[in-house]
């Protein structure tokens, strides 16, 4: 065999090479097709599976519908069909054909009649012209000759017109008879179609499913997120290519991807998929079509699908300004925690720039407590108060000694002077007061309170007083509870308008609440005035950023000591310092989630010998840690396009501001606001139990639910009341609405908040209610004991109802200044609708119906008379 190179080029064999290449090409083609269908396009299979599934469901639905139809309407349907068949037979029958022939004839007759008439008419017109012409020219003879012709033709025209009309009538008659037969068929057909409509609809649905094209579904959102070059980038979501029916109800119990979106009717109604898509909330890679790619669980995709507990963090991208996000309780709780715990004291976070310092000032600390207490507190505050919201500073012995020295030192220069508290006071009366005037709206005092007083967060919003006697001194406590603002002008602790005797009783009760086993002093013999120690303490306080939460003299202008959290959620794991935690197995994996969870569990987790970590230890439990991690995740630095951001509007903004204040002053400790709060209630029930009173009595002695407050009361009254809440609306309550000394601005925020909750746009309106004499006498009758017997429970000034005060209802004399007439009307009409569970019974409309002699027995007129009388009651009060 000659060598291949010896064979001349044109004679060489290429067949086997071509064969191999062709084979390869064919294989590659098959592979490409296989890959396309099986690897790259799972969505095709999902769509096909879903279509088959839906078709089956619709068929099943159709089956049961048909069954039902046959059972309930089968008979009617059959008789209609029979009638139709019968009617159709008539259409085919001889009689109908005859009619059709008749119609044809009648039409020919009509045509003929019209034709003859028209000829005759034109002849007449011609003669008539000639006649008129002759008249014009004055040819009298000619006129006479033509006259008879005109008359003859005129008669003929009239006659022919009549013939035409007759022919038309004849045709109409035949037509009516035909329509009668046709109409029966048409009516029957319409009726049958209407009856079968649901069936036809399902049949159509099946056909439409069969016609559905298998294709990539996508939504494009313009200018969704800001890119690196300041311009906004569009986003494309193709998620619905696989999650075909996320926006269809009825598949709630199916496994993904065929599962209906959770809470779809609410969430997707607010966020239509074609406007908001999927990844704006859920993250992931919207354009991708293969599972891991689309979910973003591939290397280097920065925002993988938010899963499990992190899902809510998606809400915060567009709802970052709101304290409360409807339908997202976890993120709402996270925001409350962030706000309550004062995280913004050390970290920069947008929206919290001007938030207050949440801790007390430390400039006169020795007036309040002892250096020993300060020492133990900064070493381990949680051992004294496990639920305090102050994180644990966990200072070493040396650090704590220095800090104690520094704080004791600045306290020497304070201008705050503490008067001596008088001796005496009854602890028993003090206990009663603490249980009854409302201290437990914010404070935990006993172990029992801890068990029963459950709030929406795991930490205390105000100090636990169960060991207060081991912390503060008697003089300080006496001064503090009488006027907290004197020691701490920025405090949210209100004044309860205590008399000196009351304050003394409370002090003697609280001072008995002591730690059972106080720790021994660790700074005995240390010279706390040593300038080196003081200087060291100052530098520790500054480095650890204590001034973030506390006012400390000399550190007024200091900045925040830690990093900004505005882009923290966008950090990648390689930007985070894990210390030795990975090696020691203290964090599970090198991920952002694990790092953050670790930090939440233990703020000092990543400290090493070389790297000091200063963040005080919050030591959150699992749930709290996850909740805050979720919030941090949402702050990833991405700037979302304006049109996607939630715009709360004027009322929404008012609500937002109000919610922050409600949180700041812990109004929900006592009141139920927006359906939440009233945390004091179990403690009142408990206190009532002691005196043998039941739950109902306790609940009616609890601070009121503020449902509908904005519509209920007049803004001017509310302003005066909030500034100085001394008006006793419910004299039977021993709980006192405290004096918060709100600045005017805050009172206005609260008023606007309550009004905005009720959707009220106009804060003030004129109230001028005329009372007619008819209304007056009707109202007086209705108010009386024989009728509605209003005074059986309601007080009118000095005229009190019978029985113990807890059975009373608010003083009518307050109504004209306090209540909004529209609300009064609705309230009398149906109290339960405005405040479910209220003790005020409903009288209307039943009462009006049984009293036809009063205002015609018309409920609206009755209630209007009662309202108008009430709004003018001051004029008649002395006569009641």
């Amino acid at each position, binding site marked *: 065999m000659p060598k291949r190179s010896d064979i001349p080029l044109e004679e060489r064999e290429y067949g086997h090479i071509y064969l191999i290449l062709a084979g390869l090409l064919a294989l590659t083609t098959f592979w490409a097709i296989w890959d396309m269908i099986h690897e790259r396009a799972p969505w095709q299979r999902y769509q096909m599976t879903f279509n088959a599934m839906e078709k089956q469901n619709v068929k099943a639905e159709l089956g049961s519908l*048909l*069954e039902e*139809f*046959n*059972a309930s309407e*089968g*008979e009617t*349907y*059959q008789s209609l*069909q029979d009638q139709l068949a019968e009617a159709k037979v008539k259409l085919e029958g001889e009689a109908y054909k005859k009619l059709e022939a008749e119609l044809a004839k009648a039409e020919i007759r009509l045509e003929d009649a019209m034709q003859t008439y028209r000829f005759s008419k034109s002849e007449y017109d011609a003669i008539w012209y000639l006649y008129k012409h002759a008249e014009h020219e004055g040819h009298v003879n000619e006129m006479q000759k033509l006259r008879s012709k005109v008359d003859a033709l005129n008669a003929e025209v009239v006659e022919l017109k009549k013939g035409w009309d007759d022919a038309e009538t004849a045709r109409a008659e035949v037509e009516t008879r035909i329509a009668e037969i046709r109409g029966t068929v048409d009516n029957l057909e319409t009726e049958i179609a209407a009856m079968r409509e649901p*069936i036809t609809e399902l*049949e159509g649905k099946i056909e439409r499913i069969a016609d559905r094209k298998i294709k990539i579904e996508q939504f494009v959102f313009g200018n969704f997120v800001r890119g690196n070059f300041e311009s906004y980038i569009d986003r494309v979501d193709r998620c619905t290519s696989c999650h075909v029916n996320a926006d269809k109800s009825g598949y709630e119990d199916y496994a993904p991807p065929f599962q209906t979106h959770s809470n779809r009717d609410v969430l997707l109604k607010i966020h239509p998929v074609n406007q908001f898509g999927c990844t704006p909330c859920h993250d992931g890679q919207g354009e991708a079509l293969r599972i891991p790619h689309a979910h973003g669980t591939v290397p280097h995709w920065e925002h993988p699908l938010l899963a499990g507990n992190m899902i809510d963090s998606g809400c915060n991208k567009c709802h970052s300004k709101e304290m409360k996000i409807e339908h997202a309780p976890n993120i709402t709780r996270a925001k409350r925690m962030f706000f309550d715990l004062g995280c913004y004291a050390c970290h920069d976070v947008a929206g919290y720039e001007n938030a207050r310092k949440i801790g007390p000032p430390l400039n006169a600390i020795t007036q309040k407590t002892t250096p020993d207490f300060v020492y133990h507190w900064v070493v381990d505050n949680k051992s004294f108060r496990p639920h305090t919201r102050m994180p644990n500073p966990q200072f070493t012995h040396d650090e704590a000694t220095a800090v104690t020295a520094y704080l004791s030192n600045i306290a020497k220069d304070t201008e705050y002077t503490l008067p001596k508290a008088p001796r005496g006071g009854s602890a028993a009366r003090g206990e009663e007061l603490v249980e009854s005037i409302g201290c437990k709206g914010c404070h935990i005092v006993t172990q029992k309170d801890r068990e029963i007083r459950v709030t929406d967060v795991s930490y205390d919003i105000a100090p636990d007083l169960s060991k207060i006697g081991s912390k503060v001194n008697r003089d300080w406590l006496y001064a503090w509870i009488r006027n907290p603002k004197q020691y701490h002008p920025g405090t949210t602790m209100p004044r309860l308008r205590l008399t000196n005797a009351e304050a003394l009783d409370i002090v003697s009760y609280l001072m008995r609440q002591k730690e059972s086993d106080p720790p021994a002093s660790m700074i005995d013999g240390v010279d706390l005035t040593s300038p080196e120690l003081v200087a060291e303490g100052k530098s520790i306080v500054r480095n650890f950023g204590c001034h973030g939460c506390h006012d400390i003299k000399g550190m007024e202008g200091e900045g925040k000591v830690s990093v900004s959290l505005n882009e923290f959620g966008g950090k990648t794991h390689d930007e985070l310092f894990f210390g030795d935690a990975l090696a020691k197995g203290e964090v599970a994996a090198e991920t952002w989630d694990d790092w953050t969870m670790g930090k939440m569990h233990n703020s000092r987790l990543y400290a090493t010998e070389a790297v000091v970590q200063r963040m005080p230890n919050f030591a959150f439990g699992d749930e709290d840690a996850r909740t805050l991690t979720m919030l941090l995740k949402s702050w990833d630095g991405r700037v979302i396009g304006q049109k996607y951001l939630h715009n709360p509007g004027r009322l929404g903004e008012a609500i937002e501001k109000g919610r922050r204040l409600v949180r700041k002053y812990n109004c929900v400790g006592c009141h139920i606001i927006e359906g939440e709060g009233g945390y004091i209630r179990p403690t009142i029930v408990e206190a009532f139990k002691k005196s043998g009173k039941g739950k*109902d*009595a306790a609940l009616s002695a609890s601070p009121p639910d503020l449902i509908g407050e904005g519509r209920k009361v007049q803004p001017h009254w509310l302003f005066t009341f909030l500034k100085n809440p001394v008006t006793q609306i419910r004299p039977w309550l021993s709980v006192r609405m405290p004096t918060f000394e709100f600045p005017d601005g805050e009172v206005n925020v609260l008023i606007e908040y309550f009004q905005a909750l009720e959707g009220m746009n106009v804060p003030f309106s004129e109230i001028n209610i005329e009372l007619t004499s008819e209304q007056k006498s009707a109202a007086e009758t209705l108010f009386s*004991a*024989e*009728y*509605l*017997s209003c005074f*059986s*429970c309601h007080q009118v000034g000095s005229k009190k*109802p*019978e*029985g*113990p005060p*807890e*059975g009373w209802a608010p003083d009518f004399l307050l109504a004209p200044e306090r209540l909004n007439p529209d609300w009064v009307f609705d309230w009398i009409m149906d*109290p*339960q609708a405005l405040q*479910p*569970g*209220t*003790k*005020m*019974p*409903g*009288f209307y409309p*039943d*009462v009006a119906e*049984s*009293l036809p002699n009063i205002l015609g027995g018309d409920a609206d007129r009755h209630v209007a008379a009662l309202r108008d009388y009430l709004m003018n009651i001051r004029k008649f009060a002395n006569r009641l």
Partner: protein
Amino acid sequence: MRKMFVLVIAMSMAALLLTACGGDGDTTTDKAAKKATTVAALPGYKVMAITDGGAIKGRVTFSGAVPAKKKVEVTKDINVCGKEPHYDASMLVSDDKGLANVVVKISNISEGKGMDAMGESVELNQLGCAFKPHISIVSAGAELTILNSDGILHNIHTYSEKNTAINVAQPGFKKKMRRSFSEPEIIRIACDVHNWMGGYIVVTDHPYYTITDASGNFELSDVPAGTYTLEYWQETLGKMTIEATVEAGGTAEANVEYATDS
């Protein structure tokens, strides 16, 4: 499509034929059942004729010391409410330890006597500023006639969970009103005008409910033979359950004793 249509008609005709043939036999029993109940039948409960029913008799006692009668202070409308002394009704124990006002029911019965065994109409009277009776039994959906015999303002405030809570005033001139409750439950009722007034409405899902008398006795009659769970409920002491087997024509004993701490 056309084939389908023919099929539909064929099916519907077949269905018609079937119902036409099978119908006659059933109607008579239906009518009999309807006749047996004047009160609407309740879901989950079937009325049947009881020919050889048994009875459950028993006594409910209290093992602790007989509590002293506790007088309730009348603080309002004394000329109407104060005619008769009021006593705390939350635990009434007779001298021989019989516990009154215990609601007894069969908790697992799904067929038995007709609902009219519960009585044609149930009346709840507000008399002398007390609910009379203290516990009313009314079947779900049936009418409860609420009377105000005092001629002063009262109100009926129900603390219900399954039924919509109501708080309706009944002024002195309104002698009578009617209400019904659709869901079975024990509803506490109160009058907000007279805070000592309290009582209960027991809304039932079948007729085998009764209340113990002043000496703690009760009887449930016309019970079909079988083994049942009896549930006892006392407003202060709570619930107890026992089993009882009823033989045809026989009488089963079902005594229970509430202990102080139950």
